[in-house]
């Protein structure tokens, strides 16, 4: 069911991208906005932001809204402390660009649409594409980074190889998991309880807990492509580095297989679950 939902979401996004060529062209002509139109866009974005985002992310986009820290108790009793993103820094986890880069606008828009249900950021499913664009533009305006840098190119992801999630690939992934010391944070069994798990902080000194594969779904969505993108682009601001340079593409896909196995999302897992 969930898979179906995610799939539907992707289909919707894909359809959206294909069906609105002027949307894409607007992207390309970003710099050519005239000031008045840009102001109007920002105004629209601000309105939406204040109604929907301000409570958590704060009126100034510094992540210090009235809601403050959100606490989530995972199924194993581990309590995650979630801080709403500080937009003034301009560092984002969910990108399809190389590590250290600004995210592509599509990444931000995707996050707004999809929400981050794992962190209780609600999906904005009834938002129009103009509104999304406006709110993303407004969010970008909080950070000075956007005035100085341009987003890097998106990393293209091919379809996952057919052998992903196969027995052999899982075995190889398991070895990589061991060799690359993933277990130091994520634990031997992927429960997020590795030896270093207790002293990880993000770039701003707040405590982070490594992802627990066994109980959770991935924040950006648990498809093979998303897992692959996490390995490739890294999660900026956290302890999760990019493996674009250290692992070749094939190895990353093997690691994806093993991750899916830990999350119980391979075909054989589903079969046993349905029994």
């Amino acid at each position, binding site marked *: 069911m969930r898979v179906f939902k995610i799939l539907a979401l992707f289909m919707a996004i894909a359809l959206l991208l294909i069906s609105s060529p002027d949307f894409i062209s607007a992207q390309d002509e970003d710099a050519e906005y005239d000031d008045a139109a840009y102001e109007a866009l920002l105004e629209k974005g601000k309105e939406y932001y204040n*109604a929907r985002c301000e*409570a958590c992310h704060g009126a100034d986009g510094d992540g210090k809204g*009235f809601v403050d820290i959100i606490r989530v108790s995972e199924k194993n009793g581990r309590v995650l402390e979630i801080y709403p993103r500080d937009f003034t820094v301009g560092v984002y986890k969910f990108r399809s660009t190389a590590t250290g880069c600004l995210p592509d606008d599509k990444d931000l828009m995707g996050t707004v649409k999809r929400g981050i249900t794992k962190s209780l950021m609600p999906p904005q499913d009834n938002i129009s594409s103009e509104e999304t664009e406006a709110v993303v533009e407004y969010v970008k305006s909080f950070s000075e980074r956007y005035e100085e840098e341009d987003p890097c190119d998106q990393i293209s992801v091919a379809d996952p190889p057919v052998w992903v999630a196969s027995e052999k690939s899982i075995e190889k992934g398991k070895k990589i998991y061991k060799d690359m010391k993933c277990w130091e944070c994520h634990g031997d069994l992927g429960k997020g309880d590795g030896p270093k798990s207790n002293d990880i902080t993000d770039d701003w000194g707040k405590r982070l807990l490594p992802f627990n594969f066994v109980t959770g779904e991935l924040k950006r969505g648990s498809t093979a492509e998303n897992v692959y993108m996490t390995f490739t682009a890294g999660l900026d601001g956290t302890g999760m580095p990019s493996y674009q340079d250290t692992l070749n593409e094939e190895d990353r896909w093997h690691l994806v297989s093993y991750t899916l196995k830990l999350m119980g999302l391979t075909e054989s897992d589903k079969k046993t679950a349905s029994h």
Partner: protein
Amino acid sequence: MHSRFYLSLLLISSLVLMMFIGMGVYREMTSEWKTYQTEYKNMLVRNAEDDAARKRAEKLEIGLRQNYVASLNKSDRCMSCHIGVENPYMAKADQPFTLHSGDYIENHPVDKFGCTICHYGQGRATNKKEAHGKGHTHWDYPIIPTKYIQSACAKCHDYKMLQEEGAELVVKGEKLFREKGCRGCHKLNGVGGDLGKALDGIGSKPRAYYAMKHVVGEHTAYNWIKQHFDDPRAIVPTSEMRVFMEEDESDLLTTYIFSIREEEMPSKYRFLKNIVTPPRDGESLYKMFCVACHGSGKISVYDEIFDRTIPAITNPPFLRSADNKTIKNIVMEGRGGTQMTSWKTTASGLKEEDVDKIVEYVASSRTYERPEPFNYLEFQTNIDSGMRLYNNRCSYCHGKEGKGGNRQLGINLKNSTVQQVLDPEFLALTIRDGREGTPMPSFGGDGLGLSDQNIADVVAYVKTFGKKK
């Protein structure tokens, strides 16, 4: 040559029959316990200190030993193999001959108590596999691992005595049981919540009571209970049990669990010196019934097990706006559609005075400044405007129509308690001032900028959720 067929059949069959009768006799002669007893006898004879002792040893009769205790309805044959259990010379011998450890059998002589009254296992069986009852033996009560053996002590003795005389594990387990809030979901003796199964006689439930599919190791009730304390969802995938153990806590609780038994010991076996009833003040009661979900109650947490936010109930902002009567109402009625069940006496078995004590405890950190009142009745409310505001500002946490849960931070607003028990002022205050320590922000003037009129509209709209369309 005549009748050759039948005569041959007769001859062969007779030979086969004789062979199997012989094999049957042989099997009887070389049974496990006979082998052990012979070995024991030889050991006694070999190690005899003097002639008299050797004579006594040689006179040892090899035969089944049965300990029949009529008042306990026990026929234990354990001593057919564990034959040296009362012999002080066997202190250093290996199993099955070794002397019983500790000084337990001094006060609990085997001929008065038997073995299975404490150790369980199948006393009637005369081979190891069946007697210990582990694995596939079709026996409901396998021998109890020694780390849980103190559960048996609690069948006859009071906790104070156990504490003083060396059975502190079960005492600690009992304390944990009270303080982990187990009875928030499980009824025991008719008192407790309804989310989990009642625990009466849980210690003597047969093996088939438990779904053993996910149990690691031997499929025994002991392993099931212990492992489900460690990770409830590893044993019952759909479990909603909120219990988080540290180190040996699961062992201690398991020990206690197996002292909750259906069968009662005869009064002559019970030895209750000084029964101390556990404290029933507000804090103890809060721990007993509330702590499993609400924890300290200071912060509110979105819980992935319940898939909804568990509200903070002891933080001052909440207490500032909710008086004791409101809190008691919520406790008594519960919140329909959530895991908060009703704590009325008829539903939970908890006495009303106990609920009062709990409410008092919850309210004990209340500061006495009152919030600026919100005169709800003074406003002309507009439900349509309220709906628009709600959908725009509230629904992404509380959900459309206030259902909450399912990855939405807000709590359920649709239940009868919010709709009927809580007054509109209380809701309006909450919206205006927010709840510090919870994700509920202040929507009032200084906060997210809703006017009092807006707030009144929203309250009016929220109050329509309960109405049937």
